[in-house]
């Protein structure tokens, strides 16, 4: 019983932190820009396949390839904002369709060039094997992803609370109209938000690549976890996202480790999300602002 309890708690932390890292960028974009950023899966794909392209196809050193892939991702984020999101800010349905198309085009292009049979991988395994925590042996790389996710959340909270840019973004997220009257430069803030929000999914993707398959469809798979967390937490609110990530991590772990039913974990998580939304339709945070 003790072992099951320990496993449940440890994996609540591991899975919860992983889900948090996956959802972080999505919550920021949704919170600041107030759009449902359905092109979010690109932010997993571009760093992964960009790194591979620069590293293996262009022969650039691996670390530099990572930096270049992030630069590529920033450029893509700005381009999507300028040429897609910005054009349809007043027409949400068209924006959704346009963002989805942008994502699908990039995903298909990646699939064409680097299909699964291309054998793409990233040597980003930093902690091989397990780490002993009491009587348990925990997958080291998972622990690393969890700690990095937590560190990123802390940095982003500081950014929103302590910096002027963060304050402006919170203001926009609180009231778009009032911020406009106050003369805030939306274009610049939105561009910064897009760039800032693209960093966490990129880092999470690179770090989970050694424990998760890398294929052109992985972006959408990860996005579904992000949506689940963000919706449960309350779209666009970081506090809600944090709580929701650990709620889902806990439910998943209890079902898998305490009740030995991993087959049911995913289903029960979804049922819990639906029940919570029925009780609190706007999510756990019930807040309008990003923080």
């Amino acid at each position, binding site marked *: 019983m003790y*072992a099951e309890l320990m*496993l449940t708690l440890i*994996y609540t932390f591991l*899975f919860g932190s992983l889900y948090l890292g996956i959802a972080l960028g999505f919550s920021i974009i949704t919170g600041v820009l107030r759009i449902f950023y359905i092109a979010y899966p690109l932010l997993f794909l571009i760093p992964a396949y960009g790194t591979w392209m620069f590293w293996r196809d262009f022969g650039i050193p691996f670390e530099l390839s990572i930096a270049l892939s992030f630069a590529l991702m920033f450029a893509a984020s700005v381009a999507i904002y300028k040429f897609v999101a910005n054009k349809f800010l007043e027409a949400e349905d068209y924006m959704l369709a346009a963002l989805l198309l942008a994502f699908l085009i990039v995903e*298909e292009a990646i*699939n*064409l060039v680097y*299909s*699964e*049979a291309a*054998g*793409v*991988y*990233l*040597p980003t*395994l930093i902690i*091989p*094997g*397990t780490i002993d925590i009491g009587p*348990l*042996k*925990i*997958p*080291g*790389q*998972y622990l690393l992803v969890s700690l990095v996710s937590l560190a990123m959340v802390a940095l982003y909270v500081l950014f929103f609370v302590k910096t002027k840019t963060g304050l402006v973004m919170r203001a926009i997220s609180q009231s778009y109209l009032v911020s406009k009257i106050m003369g805030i430069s939306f274009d610049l803030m939105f561009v910064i938000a897009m760039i800032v929000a693209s960093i966490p999914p990129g880092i999470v993707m690179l770090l989970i*690549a*050694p*424990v*998760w*398959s*890398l*294929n052109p469809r992985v972006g959408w*798979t990860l996005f579904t976890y992000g949506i689940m967390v963000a919706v449960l937490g309350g779209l666009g609110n970081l506090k809600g996202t944090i709580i929701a990530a650990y709620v889902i991590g806990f439910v*998943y772990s209890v079902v*898998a*480790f305490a009740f*030995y039913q*991993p*087959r049911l*974990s*995913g289903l029960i998580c979804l049922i819990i999300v639906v029940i919570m939304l029925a009780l609190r339709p706007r999510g756990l945070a019930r807040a309008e602002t990003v923080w």
Partner: protein
Amino acid sequence: MAISRTVLAAIIVVIVVVIGVAAYFLTLPTAPKLRSVKIALLYDPTIPILKVQGEAAKVAIEEINAAGGILGVKIEYKEWNTMKKVDVALAAYREAVVDWGAHYVVLEGVSEEMLALMEEGAKLYPRYPHILMYVGRASDVTVKVINEYDKYKFAFRMFDVDHDSNALNSATIFWDAKNVYGVNKIAILIEDAAWTLSARRGLRIETKHGVVEQKPFREIAKEIGLEVVYEAHFPVGEKNFLPYLEAAYARGAEYILAWTSWYTDTVTLAKQWATSIARDIYLVLAGGPNMWTIFWDLTGGAALGVMSPVYDIEDYPPVSPYTQSFVKKMHEKGLRVDLGAHYYYSAIYHIKEAIEYVAKQGRDPSNIDEVIKALETVPCSVHTLLPKEKAILGSKEGGRFHSYPAAAIPIFQFQGKDKIVFVGYGMANPYYKEFYPEDFIKKYFDTTPHPPKKPAELRGS
């Protein structure tokens, strides 16, 4: 010059005989000639594994045409993109058969599509005789053909049926686990999909050819002397295998069999196994990208120690003279080879041999009914994975009519980059002995046991 009556009579007799013989041969019916062979390839080229199936069939077609075709007739082929959707596949099928006049339709390995196309094919067949074939697993395909032969006789599964393969493959693998790897406690993880029903629950089907029964894996393992300490069924598309691996470790498993297909992300499974508490437990995978040699790259080396059937090896045991050349040709095209690719390639050769058999019997090789009977009669002598005596589609035993018998699958271990080693004991394994000719086993699987290396040992080296 006078001709004697005798000579005159002889000349007349000779003339009459010559005329008679000539008349006899001239009035003999000429053997019907093959008019054309049209093969429709229905697959989704955007999905790597389905693209490979279509490409494998094309390699065989190109080889046959380069060698002069079938009875001197070049095979014509045309491709349709199914988008891996039943409705699109149905539309493509109708177009291929009705508009283009396909004689043979080779469908990608998607059972839902096959079952839908069989229904449509039953309506089309009387006006447009053709043969529909695919490489996939769903007992229903075979049961339909057995129970309603006249309606579905045009349908062939150029593969083994799931209840047959689940039984033989698991027994072969468990025998090695017990007798070569030396394990006693095992964990079984089974993909929760239709094709594994018999592996999970066992099976009993009543057919016109008799009752088909199969025990679930746990019972097969028990009969071989293994203790199943953990069994779990994971959903298709599972991404988080850590709970299963933790449970297998907690129950003391020394060996994990993950019964997977392409629906399971075995890359993620191997990666998570390699970084989990279970990484010192033997891991054996079934289907998926682990059948490719590049599984090593896909996992970034996390496959070290993983065991799996690997059909992509250029020096794969040459069951037929075509086995190794096929793999090499696919590699030259930049394509990988899995189990299905071998079967799609061989299917085209089986069609060729059936048509030639019909002609040899003096019957019409363009007559599809005749070719169906021939496919039920003639083995594929050049099948790349099945010995000739096993490459038959007409057996009425074991519920495998219009399907091949299951094959004993050799298991390999990833022991390093480009180091994929056969593990097992072919000569002693009774399931190998039953399947492959003895001299073949001796030559390619050796006469001594080849135990796998322990994952920890491989990591250490």
